[in-house]
């Protein structure tokens, strides 16, 4: 098994038994990916906003770049609701995954949300 730590922010914290913040320690099968984790905690992928793994941004509201990312023992995953904002000027230059860079190159790198238009 792979042991991971998750923090859920916003109303999706209900998936972890919290009000607006929930911390969970979970054991997932070896080879589990982000999609597995979301299924495990009962979080609809469409309700998932920004997603971090170990301080690296892997996904954004309306994008689906993290689904197949593998989880490793000791990982910390932070997941935000789709209502959480993060204006570009406050994330310009942060670390992000290669898959998310590719997705943003396709859909635009500066948008606040990718749910309102293509």
């Amino acid at each position: 098994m792979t042991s991971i730590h998750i923090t859920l922010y916003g109303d999706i914290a209900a998936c972890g038994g919290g009000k607006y913040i929930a911390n969970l320690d979970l054991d997932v099968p070896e080879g589990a990916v982000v999609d597995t984790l979301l299924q495990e905690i009962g979080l609809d992928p469409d309700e998932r906003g920004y997603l971090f793994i170990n301080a690296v941004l892997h996904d954004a509201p309306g994008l689906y770049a993290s689904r197949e990312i593998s989880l490793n023992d000791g990982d910390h995953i932070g997941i935000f609701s789709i209502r959480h904002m993060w204006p570009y000027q406050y994330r310009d230059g942060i670390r992000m995954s290669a898959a998310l860079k590719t997705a943003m190159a396709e859909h635009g790198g500066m948008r606040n949300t990718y749910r309102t238009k293509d």
Partner: protein
Amino acid sequence: MGDLSHAYEEVPAKWEKWAGRGLTSAIVADEVEPTCHPLGPNNKFVIAPGWVSGTPAAPSSGRTSFGGKSPLTGTIKESNSGGLSSQKIAKLGLAAIILEGMPKDDKWYTLVINKDGVSFESADDLLGKGMYEVDEILWKKYPNEPAVIGIGQVGESKLSNAGVSVNDPENKPGRYAGRGGLGAVMGARGVKAIVVDDTDGPGVDIADMELFKTGRKKLTDAITSHDLTKPTGGLNSFGTNVLMNIINEAGGLPTRAFSAGQFEGASKISGEMVAEMVENRKAGMTGHGCHPGCIIKCSNIYPDENGKELVSCVEYETAWALGANCGIDDLDYVAKMTRECNDLGLDTIEAGNTVAMVMEGGALEFGDKEGALGLFEEIRQMTPLGRILGQGVEATAKAFGVHRIPTVKGQSMPAYEPRAIKGIGVTYATSTMGADHTAGYTIAPEIAGVGGKVDPLSDEGKAELSLTFQAATAFVDSTGYCLFIAFPILDIPDGWAGMAESVAGVTGMAITGDDVIPIGKEVLKIERDFNTRAGFTAMHDRPPEFMRYEELPPHNVVWTIKDEVLDEVYSWVNGK
């Protein structure tokens, strides 16, 4: 103020097009000698509502711009605030209020402005009092629930971290034009408070009502449909402090005087926790509006453990400055210190960074919440230490022998670590205002004309991006709209067009979305020229030295943007 007189003047043709930040900066640039002492007789204190302030139902349009030469930075300064003042000044038919000179009798005054004119009244009953009491006294003394623009004890003492308070709809002093010490500039004019009553004022002339209405609807629809700004959206639910956990997860949250990018107690002082406290204590509120007509409502009223209102509001920069940056994870103490800032008249960003300098200097341990709160009592009592603290970060750092000083042009950095979030660092370094997180709001790249030329995910092109964002911000700061309209109008082109059309409708100027950046650049040029004449050069557009060599965990990054990139941002103004 020298002879306690006032005069109404028509707006000169050279300033006719301006409002808000554009107007305060144009007046300061034309009428203030750039090399003057900010607290001396040759500085001026300028107040201006935006283009659309005071118009019927323009959404979230209650920002007031305050301007002058800053005692904190030595640069030109525009700092703006919510609260009641913008709409009331505009409805009196005033484009700006300019305070000049200093009382010869060394006395303090309350200026009362209404449809009948201006009166100069003794402020003896307000001296030495904090802004909570000042607001209360003035609402009892004057009818019609007026706007109150005021300074606390820090402004009276003319210290460089004095902000300008504006009362909110509940007559509380939580709305501040905090940055840059303009409260000291107001204090140097001998003015403790300005009362503005717009009853029976002439209102705002609207040149083209149909165009205004069209623009207003587009903008309103954008705000109310976007995930971030709509009712129950991110800002409405968690306030600006919705960012605390995000920036922390990204490793960009300045922690313990900019020594780390993550704070283990971040979630305890976040917007989510504010919302939980409000619900658990069955008191206070989220989704609070800081001025009439705001439809975003990102403010909050934070209750104490007994369910009594403690302060409004605990927003992101404040919670970070007085929390994570000082290693403090107790939201109640953050709120108590915020209330102290609101009462004394301190900018919370500068105040939190100042406390962190005391901790960095070893006089307090990081995380010492009682000790941190005690520092505000030093300021309240105006002890020698309190006076140093009231001068802000650089003075305090010198007093405590600190060399890791997170400032640009004398103003301390807000809640985004430039080593981890490099784009904001370019704006911190080059802004005409010193380190300022509101100086460069992102707008849609295709509208700004940089869409096809700049890769936002690369280090290349940061200078052009920063300039474009700074110009867009200068425009929005001139409208009277809250800067947070930038979020929906970035994603919804109709909202962008609506903002420009509403301005065009009010003013009669032929402004479209295409004009936003050029007009914003005009404002920046005015400001940059003033700074040049005040002695600032490209060498002042630099981040703090320690960020170049000290690695920031968890990503262990240093500042890597080259100086030449910083120099590019304003090379179009003066070639330097």
